[in-house]
């Protein structure tokens, strides 16, 4: 066999990446991307936790009304409460009309007055709750009017003002969480842009050779961008996984906070969003690197020397 035939059989060379890994996608950069992905994951989980809490509060609190009946004597209160309860039960759009038992009303005062210290003639207000349809809740004026006319000491509370403030505050926190997520993703892109520029400068000799053999700027940008695709995918995956683990840990540590405070748990939707982080970072990293390289190379002959 000739040398040529021997070589045909023995050649081991493959398609080594044209842009070497070192200097472009170093270990430290992967750590930075991983940390940013972790922060993005935590921000995203916080967003969904608050979102779920707001939905719960809105659903539970805006779906009920409470009527409070006061009076000078227990008898007056009982008569007023009976009348109010009858009105509520006969009103279309209300259901599950429930009067708070006397024992529970007394239990509410227990922290201040203690057990067995309540005199029998204490005029404790009566609380009546009812589920309300959205249509009726939108216009409670006539019901309120009817109640006040029949029982002047009755007051109707639809929790609107309190719920609205709570939901508004939670919505702002939710907005901040999402903004933090977006900013962290943008920061990742900015890091990639800086790294891509540094990588381009570090591999200027390679870029020159590529230009000499007829490579277009797009080809070079693609080669460098591909390095960052892997970096974004790997760093993003590690960061998202760490965020998932941290959230699971928080869920175990905090447990169920009574259904009122947002629970740090991961449902299927949140998990899908966490999975999107590496894809998002991979895509953005590629695009950011390519754009940075193309802008650096555009119209410049200095990379052919």
């Amino acid at each position, binding site marked *: 066999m000739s040398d*040529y035939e021997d070589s045909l059989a023995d050649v081991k060379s493959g398609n080594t990446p044209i842009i070497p890994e070192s200097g472009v996608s170093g270990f430290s950069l992967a750590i930075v991307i991983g940390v940013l992905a972790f922060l993005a994951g935590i921000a995203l989980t916080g967003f969904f936790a608050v979102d779920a809490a707001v939905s719960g509060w809105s659903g539970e609190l805006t779906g009920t009304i409470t009527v409070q009946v006061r009076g000078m004597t227990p008898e007056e209160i009982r008569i007023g409460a009976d009348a109010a309860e009858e009105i509520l039960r006969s009103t279309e759009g209300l259901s599950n009309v429930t009067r708070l038992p006397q024992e529970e009303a007394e239990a509410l005062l227990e922290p201040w007055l203690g057990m067995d210290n309540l005199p029998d003639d204490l005029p404790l207000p009566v609380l009546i709750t009812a589920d309300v349809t959205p249509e009726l809740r939108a216009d409670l004026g006539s019901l309120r009017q009817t109640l006040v006319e029949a029982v002047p000491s009755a007051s109707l509370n639809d929790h609107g003002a309190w719920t609205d403030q709570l939901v508004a505050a939670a919505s702002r926190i939710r907005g901040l969480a999402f903004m933090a997520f977006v900013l962290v993703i943008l920061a990742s892109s900015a890091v990639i842009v800086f790294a891509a520029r540094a990588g381009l400068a570090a591999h200027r000799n390679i870029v020159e050779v590529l*230009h000499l053999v007829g490579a277009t700027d797009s*080809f070079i940008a693609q080669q460098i961008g591909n390095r960052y695709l892997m970096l974004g995918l790997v760093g993003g995956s590690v960061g998202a996984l760490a965020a998932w683990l941290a959230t699971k840990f928080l869920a175990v540590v905090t447990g169920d906070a009574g259904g009122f405070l947002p629970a740090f748990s991961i449902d299927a939707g949140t998990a899908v969003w966490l999975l999107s982080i590496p894809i998002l970072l991979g895509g953005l990293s590629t695009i950011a690197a390519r754009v940075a390289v193309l802008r650096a190379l555009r119209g410049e002959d200095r990379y052919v020397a």
Partner: protein
Amino acid sequence: MVTDQNSQAIVTFEDVHLTYDGVREVLRGTDFTLRPGDFRFLTGPSGAGKTSLLKLIYAAHRPTTGRVEVFGNDLLDMPSEEMPKLRRRIGVVFQEFRLLDHLTAFENVALPMRVLGVNPNSYRDDVIELLSWVGLAHRIDAPPTVLSGGEKQRVALARALVSKPDLILADEPTGNVDPVMGEKIMRLLLELNRLGTAIIVATHDLGLVRGLKQNILRLKDGKVTLHGPIPDETPAREPEGAQ
């Protein structure tokens, strides 16, 4: 090789001036023409503008004034986006090799084909054949870091040839190799020229030029002072000039 004087020029310089940074003028009204199949030794003292002239041909620079036409493209008017297509028709060999150290000899030679997006299966045999032709069949998987100067230069030569260019530019290709290897590289270039590739070789080594009996293009102070056969009284080496 006999040149058809009526064939269209592949390189034309007309009153070309090139100034670096607006102050250092390296070419001062250079004129010459290169036709398909021509072989020229580009000679002249250091600082005469040889490398700058080659850079203009492979579009690393544009002329300050004058007309440089390469394969029918006027470089002054040519959009940057078109430059890669032009460079793909030119193979360049440098004195300092310019190989990529993280790639093997095979991958360095195959680089222009990868840049073109050619399927590796379709150029694999060509690359191996080229490396065999330059005597490096046994070094195919070796990175440049373990190759000698002569071997590196032959890899660089194979890389310049793999895309079958119409023009080869070699800037001091024997500058970093021993005389025996230098002559071997020159013989390879002459063999290519006999197959029809136009070649310009920049060199100081006038003894080598005289031995190979090819026309020269002599540059001095940025101007062509001689275009034709080398005179008998020429010294063996060009004098060192100011850079």
